[in-house]
């Protein structure tokens, strides 16, 4: 066990995990997931919000099994390596709001950091502005860290606190099995299924779930985190996590080339728009929210799987944020930003600065 532990904690380990995610994300697209969206934590949580009817954007409703797999895979890994640590109590309401704002920002850009990399790896030049925004948002976050920002300490707590999000994911899986997709039907029992648009494009349930579980297992072990990658590079000049992020990008790029999925350009890219400023600004919001919350959306799922109740609250915040985004017209579409997307970016940024400036109590 300790050999495996040491491997995943090494530079080679994190590179292998990044490459694994990159290859399988590109393959998931080949197997049915939407364009440059083999894996997108933000988009997939948004699709889940749609599947359970929290929003009624008919083109983005599907109970994505990958997300369930991430949490459950991370939990299995945490148990196997005796790392399941139920903990909670570090400013949960703030984490919920940070999750909402992260999702609002990500849906202005149309993707989480993983998808920003996958979009670039698929030739979508608009992703460059998103990635620059992500760096900008995280950089602002590092200024807050240097100024003493933190959300306070967590406490060890009841095992059930750590179990709740994995159990919710198991519950969602049960719903997915009880109410399977009916061809050309927008609804099956209580679940919504897109009949067109990105929500209608997906790999088979077993494949999505298997890849999700595998990613959850290895990502929990290696602490893979795209926000941490950039944060550590900026804050400590440390490239450990960054090498994993780079490996994801290169592996997805090479796999896309092999599969004929690399299509360079700016216009007409799948599930993307060409408004540079708002691609940038959306990800500034998301990047800052991830930084203040201590992890990218993927990492929050893995943390939740290993018992972190605060990360679980962030995840629920993201799902609710997706519902708000679509119900209030904040989310972008291939045509451009939503009717209230620009206002949402500005308000989100103000709230994030408020949180950053006011939560600066020094830890004793």
């Amino acid at each position, binding site marked *: 066990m300790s050999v495996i532990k040491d491997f995943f904690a090494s530079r080679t380990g994190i590179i292998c995990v990044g490459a694994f995610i990159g290859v399988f994300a590109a393959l998931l697209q080949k197997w049915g997931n939407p364009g440059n969206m083999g894996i997108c934590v933000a988009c997939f949580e948004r699709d889940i919000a749609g599947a359970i009817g929290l929003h009624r954007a008919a083109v983005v409703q599907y109970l994505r099994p990958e997300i369930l797999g991430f949490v459950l895979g991370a939990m299995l890994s945490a148990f196997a390596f005796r790392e399941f640590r139920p903990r909670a109590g570090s400013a949960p309401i703030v984490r919920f709001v940070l999750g909402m704002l992260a999702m609002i920002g990500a849906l202005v850009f149309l993707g989480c950091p993983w998808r920003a990399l996958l979009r670039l790896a698929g030739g979508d030049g608009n992703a460059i502005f998103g990635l620059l925004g992500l760096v900008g948002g995280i950089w602002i976050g590092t200024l807050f860290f240097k100024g003493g920002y933190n959300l306070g300490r967590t406490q060890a707590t009841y095992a059930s606190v750590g179990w709740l999000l994995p159990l919710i994911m198991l519950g969602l899986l049960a719903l997915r099995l009880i109410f399977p997709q009916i061809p050309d039907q927008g609804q099956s029992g209580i679940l919504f299924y897109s009949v067109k648009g990105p929500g209608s494009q997906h790999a088979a349930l077993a494949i999505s779930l298997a890849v999700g579980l595998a990613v959850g297992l290895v990502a929990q072990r290696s602490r893979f985190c795209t926000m941490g990658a950039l944060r550590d590079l900026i804050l*400590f000049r440390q490239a450990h996590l960054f090498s994993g992020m780079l490996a994801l990008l290169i592996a997805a790029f090479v796999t896309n080339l092999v599969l004929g999925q690399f299509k360079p350009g700016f216009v007409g890219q799948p599930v993307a728009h060409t408004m540079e400023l708002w691609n940038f600004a959306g990800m500034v919001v998301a990047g800052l929210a991830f930084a203040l919350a201590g992890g990218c959306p993927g990492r929050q799922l893995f943390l939740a799987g290993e018992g972190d109740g605060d990360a679980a609250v962030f995840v629920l915040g993201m799902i609710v944020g997706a519902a708000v985004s679509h119900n209030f017209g904040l989310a972008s579409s291939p045509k451009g930003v939503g009717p209230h997307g620009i206002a949402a970016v500005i308000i989100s940024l103000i709230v994030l600065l408020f949180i950053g400036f006011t939560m600066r109590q020094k830890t004793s």
Partner: protein
Amino acid sequence: MSELVDARGLSCPQPVLITLEKLKLMDRGKVVVLVDTDTSRENVVRAAATLGWQLQESKPEGREYRLTLTKE
């Protein structure tokens, strides 16, 4: 005498931040860091190594770790 850094319950990147702050202040000697997750343990040890600090001992204490870092 060793200095103590209590990073228990803090989320990323706080454990590394406060440890580095202390290590930079001390330059050399012995520092004990308390952490409560494996992630924090790995991050703290990795960051300390970049400043030339060695992990002398990593002692599990219940659900926590007591890390002893030294630099000659």
